[in-house]
């Protein structure tokens, strides 16, 4: 007689804990190492996140999609000529290149200044923008319609950091800039979009002048949720004449999305 063959991959007897966290727990083990399946799943997740960083944004397709919705568009480029430069020189991603600056200076300005310009930048994840930017604006722009916002043409910037929006807003003479940008991709969230709002934009401002809404994507903060929060921030910024840290506390007092799952099993009654 022989013993039943022992399985090589050992499963963890606490796999039911996976329901409580998106963390990669209870992966099992081969010896004490990562088994083949979770190892290759990780490799795939990393490959996706890398693609999100290095995939060149399809500006033509995005522009066509936005124009089809009736938006006027303008395509610009930062001073970072390509992705390797962009990744190593954040200062260049925060500035427009010469041609883009001249194009903005030459662009016709309205008699009454724009209330807001939306700037769409690829940032660190073009997937985030291709997935979410147009769909978010589908919710956001109608929400602004009721309260008389004079909106500038949409500005698309390639190789963009958040701060490039300040220069765009300043050159267009807009009273506010809202930047939609691809966030640094996480292993489990390669397509997350960030939204940054700044009142009275001008080159040289820093993070303390901005308000941020993060993790906008299908599995994260919904377009409706993000639009609701952004409309609140824009309205309050315009009414009170300020943005950034001074506006932050009250915005955070908005209904929280935090969830709690009740009693901690490790500390229950024995």
């Amino acid at each position, binding site marked *: 007689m022989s013993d039943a063959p022992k399985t090589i991959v*050992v499963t*963890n*007897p*606490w796999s*039911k*804990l*996976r329901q*409580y*966290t*998106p*963390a*990669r*727990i*209870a*992966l099992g*083990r081969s*010896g*004490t*190492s*990562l088994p083949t399946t*979770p190892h290759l799943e*990780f*490799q795939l*997740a*990393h490959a996706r*996140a*890398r693609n*999100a*960083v290095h995939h060149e944004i399809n500006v033509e397709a995005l522009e066509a999609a936005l124009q089809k919705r009736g938006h006027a568009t303008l395509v610009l480029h930062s001073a970072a000529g390509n992705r390797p430069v962009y*990744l*190593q*020189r*954040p*200062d260049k991603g925060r500035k427009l290149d010469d041609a883009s600056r001249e194009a903005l200076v030459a662009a016709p300005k309205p008699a009454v200044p724009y209330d807001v310009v939306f700037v769409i930048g690829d940032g*660190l994840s073009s997937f985030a923008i291709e997935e979410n930017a147009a769909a978010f604006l589908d919710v956001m722009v109608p929400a602004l319609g009721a309260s008389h916002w004079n909106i500038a043409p949409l500005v698309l910037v390639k190789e963009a950091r958040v701060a490039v929006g300040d220069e765009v807003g300043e050159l267009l003479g807009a009273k506010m800039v809202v930047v939609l940008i691809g966030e*640094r*991709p*996480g*292993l*489990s*969230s*390669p397509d997350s979009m960030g939204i940054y709002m700044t009142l009275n934009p001008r080159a040289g401002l820093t993070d303390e002048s901005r308000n941020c809404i993060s993790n906008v994507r299908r599995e994260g903060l919904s377009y409706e949720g993000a639009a609701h929060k952004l409309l609140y921030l824009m309205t309050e910024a315009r009414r009170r004449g300020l943005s950034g840290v001074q506006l932050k506390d009250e915005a955070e007092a908005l209904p929280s*999305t*935090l*969830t*709690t*799952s*009740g*009693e*901690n*099993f*490790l*500390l*229950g009654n*024995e």
Partner: protein
Amino acid sequence: MSYLQTVGGHRYVFETLKVLMAKATPARSGDYLAGVAAGDDEERVAAQMALADVPLPVFLSEHVVPYETDEVTRLIIDDHDAKAFSVVSHLTVGGFRDWLLSDAATETSLAALAPGLTPEMVAAVSKICRVQDLVLISQKCRVVTKFRNTIGLKGRLSTRLQPNHPTDDPTGIAASIVDGLMYGNGDAVIGINPATDSIAAVTTLIEMLHEVITRYNIPTQSCVLTHVTTSIEAINRRAPLDLVFQSIAGTQAANSSFGINLALLKEGYDAAQSLQRGTVGNNAMYFETGQGSALSANAHHDVDQQTLEARAYAVARKFRPLLVNTVVGFIGPEYLYDGKQIIRAGLEDHFCGKLLGVPMGCDICYTNHAEADQNDMDTLLTLLGVSGITFIMGIPGSDDIMLNYQTTSFHDALYARKVLGLKPAPEFEAWLHQAGIFEDGADLKLADTLPKPFQRALAHLH
């Protein structure tokens, strides 16, 4: 004072010590971003040759950041131990490298020398070391610290169990803690990066970790990685806090951008000491650092990022920390571009920390926009394991779902322990055997079944 070097008929002039050190630094993106790097490889080696000829006492008189305006420089100079230094005070930087490689440098002589070394001296010698020199020399160093267990002994490798969760959900955090403990991780600390910094949220997490450690009799310590002022406030509110955390950097201005100074760190240190919660010792501070932090705060004084990083360890050692962690690849490719730069930086940081007498660990990590992957991390982990790294991170499946970066997993820690024959801190190792997580025997073997107390905790879950 200027430094000259003639190479191949070309005469290089380096105007100051900080220019010389920056140009002698192995290439990395942050020094290019700062505009302080060598123009080409030949200039870099010329600078390394000139740096090798600099007598060590020069570092005590020519300061890379002004003494008058920077309290970190004042700390370095005012606390310098001339008697300890006298063993090597006759040497140049190049001669010091030879001494460190020689049999004169032993665990005992290096420990005695540490208070006589300044960060700039160890940074300088690291710049003319190859990877194997960094490994060999740091392996000779031993820095032992204690709280509820003993960290840093020869043949030991500890891990920080990092059970982060995007919304600080206690049950989600507990799930990751179970995962880590069952893989033998968590002897350096169970340390959470909280998603929210409010005193109420932080206190909740501190209490939870305290209860878990008490309920399961785990010989380890906890930490919620929040600002030192929040920890002080939590202590004032009688929270059961073990370790006081703070991110620190190598210049006064960079520390100021973190909202701290030396006086505030002293306050945090005193508050932690007042609790006396350690059982085998009372090293009660946990610091994190990383190359590039001063530059990102525009507080770098045109000094290269590796020298500034070493200066952060002078800040750390003032407060007798249990753990110091260089979060080497977290900051991004504008400071360390690829696997090659991250690997070198991790080894330099460990080397400099250990020579200065700091219990150096490393968050062996990368972000998705860096040119790095798991293979680079395996390489750095193996090299640091051979170097005698004090501790590394342990996280479920290498994926930090809160901070969005990749670091070493629970499995990775067991890999390093297995191939290098390293064990956890002795008190924690005894607990792992007693709890039935490790099977008894010479080889590292995990048990197939959950220990009884954890079986009971999970019994009513579906």
